[in-house]
């Protein structure tokens, strides 16, 4: 039986990676005045950074700072406007993905880019199939794929269709794919955004293992503790400018945040003591596809946190509650009255808002302007008679853009041309103006930078003060732990434990989620 190393080494040989191995500690990849403009937008201003062989190099920065742009430049996804990339001492073009792959430069991108209609195994081997006499060796590929997945401890089935997996699981497949490709230089763009602690830990183990094999790792994240846990050095981007690189031992969180946002931030988790009001929502024994017998209540002025591992059923519960998916049993009481929610419009009419977890699939109309996206749930309110009030439309969109400091020149910009974090802000902004009584935020801060996270949490507080209640679904334990007045833990579709604010430790909660 083969293991990951063997497979990845075989790929090494078969690809004849041109890398002349560089001694650990000396520069393997250097950016010299690298620059990228999208039309008039300067996504990356001339940046000069060098990555040392065998290190884990973190990159941090606000949303839209240019991190993903940098990665896309290095992997040949987009072409640079100016500057130079030096690989092992030689300038390289990196104009196409193939050039990057041939040198052993791989990436796990922020948005999962795999083929949903192919199996996990086919995705793992895509572009690199095993052949005999021109015919693919399907069974062997499937077997090897399973070996790699098991070796990495991901527990995913190789013959499954990728499209049937959750985003988090797809992210893991993308990681496995990069790991088995004879990689020398591996870039992770916010890999843990959709992972829970458990999966994150697996991922970190993998990253360390790769490092020990001599792979250089670039790690992009908005989570400071991850950066400090993993990285050897860290570079900071701000507004497309490289503002500094630090050795991890010589810096601290506050310094990095100050570099990132050009000001200091006392506290991220903003928790005000707001007295809980009457019960808004009372769910009793709700069951549906992916969740069973869930009971919980939400009162005005309180945040109810839902924590669990991937596939624990929280999103499904939220969608069931919101009327997107049929529920098979249970009752919903809204402000004391029993109600049936047959579809999303029923939910919205009652005063429930849902900011869904996948911004690409559920949250945004990517090829429409962000203004339209923000206003979509509230057009009814923005219309006078049959026609839309253009001025109200503009006012509302501009207000959300300002309140959430969405980085965009105008509301007419297409959602697709925004950075991941800014897209996430648009998803949130859509619902803030809705005037709902109950807000369900499903992974609201995925890919959002620290500064904005703080803004968003402040906005939560403002909503609570207006008498609303919030259900906060998050796979990021510190977030739910610090914000939720009550924390419910989900496991395999069941609500297995509930705690009041800070009544249980991180470890306890995690244990309940994993089920030990």
């Amino acid at each position: 039986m083969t293991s990951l190393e063997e497979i990845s080494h075989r790929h090494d040989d078969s690809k004849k990676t041109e890398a002349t191995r560089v001694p650990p500690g000396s520069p393997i990849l250097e950016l010299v005045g690298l620059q990228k403009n999208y039309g008039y937008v300067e996504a990356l201003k001339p940046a000069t950074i060098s990555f040392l062989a065998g290190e884990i190099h973190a990159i941090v920065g606000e949303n839209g700072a240019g991190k993903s742009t940098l990665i896309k430049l290095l992997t040949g996804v987009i072409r640079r406007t100016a500057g130079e990339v030096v690989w092992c001492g030689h300038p390289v073009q990196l104009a196409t993905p193939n050039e990057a792959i041939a040198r052993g430069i791989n990436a796990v991108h922020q948005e999962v880019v795999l083929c949903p209609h192919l199996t996990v195994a086919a995705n793992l081997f895509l572009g690199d199939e095993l052949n005999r006499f021109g015919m693919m060796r399907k069974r062997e590929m499937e077997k090897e794929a399973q070996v790699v997945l098991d070796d990495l401890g991901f527990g995913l089935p190789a013959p499954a269709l990728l499209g049937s997996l959750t985003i988090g699981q797809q992210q893991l497949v993308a990681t496995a794919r990069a790991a088995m490709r004879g990689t020398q230089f591996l870039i992770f763009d916010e890999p843990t955004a959709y992972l829970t602690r458990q999966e994150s830990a697996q991922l970190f183990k993998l990253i360390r293992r790769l490092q020990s094999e001599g792979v250089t790792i670039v790690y992009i994240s908005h989570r400071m503790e991850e950066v400090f846990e993993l990285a050897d050095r860290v570079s900071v981007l701000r507004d497309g400018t490289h503002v500094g690189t630090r050795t991890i031992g010589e810096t601290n969180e506050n310094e990095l945040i100050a570099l990132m946002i050009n000001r200091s931030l006392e506290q991220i988790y903003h928790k005000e003591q707001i007295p809980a009001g009457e019960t808004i929502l009372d769910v009793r024994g709700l069951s549906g596809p992916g969740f069973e017998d869930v009971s919980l209540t939400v009162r005005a002025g309180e945040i109810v946190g839902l924590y669990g591992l991937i596939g624990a059923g929280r999103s499904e519960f939220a969608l069931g509650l919101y009327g997107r998916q049929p529920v098979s049993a249970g009752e919903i009481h809204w402000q004391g009255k029993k109600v049936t929610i047959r579809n999303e419009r029923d939910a919205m009419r009652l005063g429930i808002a849902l900011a869904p977890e996948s911004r690409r699939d559920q949250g945004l109309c990517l090829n429409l302007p962000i203004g339209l996206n923000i206003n979509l749930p509230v057009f009814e309110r923005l219309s006078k008679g049959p026609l839309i009030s253009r001025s109200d439309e503009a006012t509302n969109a501009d207000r959300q853009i300002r309140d959430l400091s969405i980085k965009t020149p105008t509301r007419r910009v297409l959602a697709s041309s925004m950075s991941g974090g800014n897209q996430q802000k648009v998803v949130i902004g859509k619902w803030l103006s809705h005037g709902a009584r109950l807000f369900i935020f499903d992974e609201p801060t995925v890919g959002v930078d620290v500064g904005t996270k703080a803004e968003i949490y402040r906005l939560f507080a403002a909503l609570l003060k207006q008498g609303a209640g919030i259900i906060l679904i998050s796979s990021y334990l510190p977030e739910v732990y610090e914000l939720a007045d009550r924390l419910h833990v989900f496991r395999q579709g069941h609500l297995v434990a509930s705690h009041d604010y800070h009544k249980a430790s991180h470890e306890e909660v995690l244990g309940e989620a994993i089920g030990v």
Partner: protein
Amino acid sequence: MTVTTTEVTAPAPGRRMNILFSLTLIGLLLFLWILLGIWTVSFWTPLNISNLLRQGAMTAILALGQTFVIITAGIDLSVGAIVGFTSVILAWLIQAGVPLWLSIVLTLLMGVAIGVFHGFGIVRMGLPPFIITLATLTSLRGIGLLITNGSTINITNEGFTNFARADFFGVPSLFWMVILVAIPAYFFLHLSRWGRYLFAVGSNREAARLSGVNVNRMIYLAYILSATCAAFVGVLLASRIGIGNATQADGWELQAIASSVIGGTSLFGAIGSVQGPLIGAFILATINNGANLLNVNSFWQRIITGVLIIVIVYFDQLRRRRM
């Protein structure tokens, strides 16, 4: 599932750009007109302009209806067949002695019914728009042929058949019909929330749905609008050629789609306007009219049309990319 190409070159379909873009298409149309004015003596005669406006009118209305569907990322292949079919229905009703106004109303309702059927097939039965409208295309021609037994129904109502050739204030009645359809269409698509919903549905159905848009209703609506526009064109056609014949308007669906795309509508959905398809239809009409005036060989005419479609759409792409 998600299909993504990372570098987004398409710009905001914001208001200003839309106007600029339509201007350029109008520019092309005017350019063609000036060219034809130089090449032929008869182009700029009032008679010919009238003819031109008449010739483009029916495709324009079809293209407009089609545009609603394309904006939702769908397609309606049945519009040509609906035109032929409804011309038969109308002729049949009129000849059966039904009052003219009632015949027209019933014919338009037939269009609505066909649209509802398409919506049903797409929303409830989960069929691809291409397939369900292809199926109705086939069946409707069959039903129309059954009704007429393969021949034509002659419409003897003089008032009705005179309408399509009449002028009002010097402008052909058929062109007035375009305006009659275009103005409410503009309000609907660009100024009402329903229009916004159509774009949202075309861009991302699930996101629209979670935002409280009644996606199914919008899809029904788009196909009803398209089929009703086609039924209306069926009425106009019956008036213009004075007969009901199920095999007429063969291939007009492709002309309508081409007009719409020439007018800047994206077949991937979520991009389109009211003015675009109208201009597109009149560009196509101008090409044919010009070729006839210049007495271009009919076969060359086809070749030229094909080449011009490529050229126009290509430059349109270029312009949009650069903006």
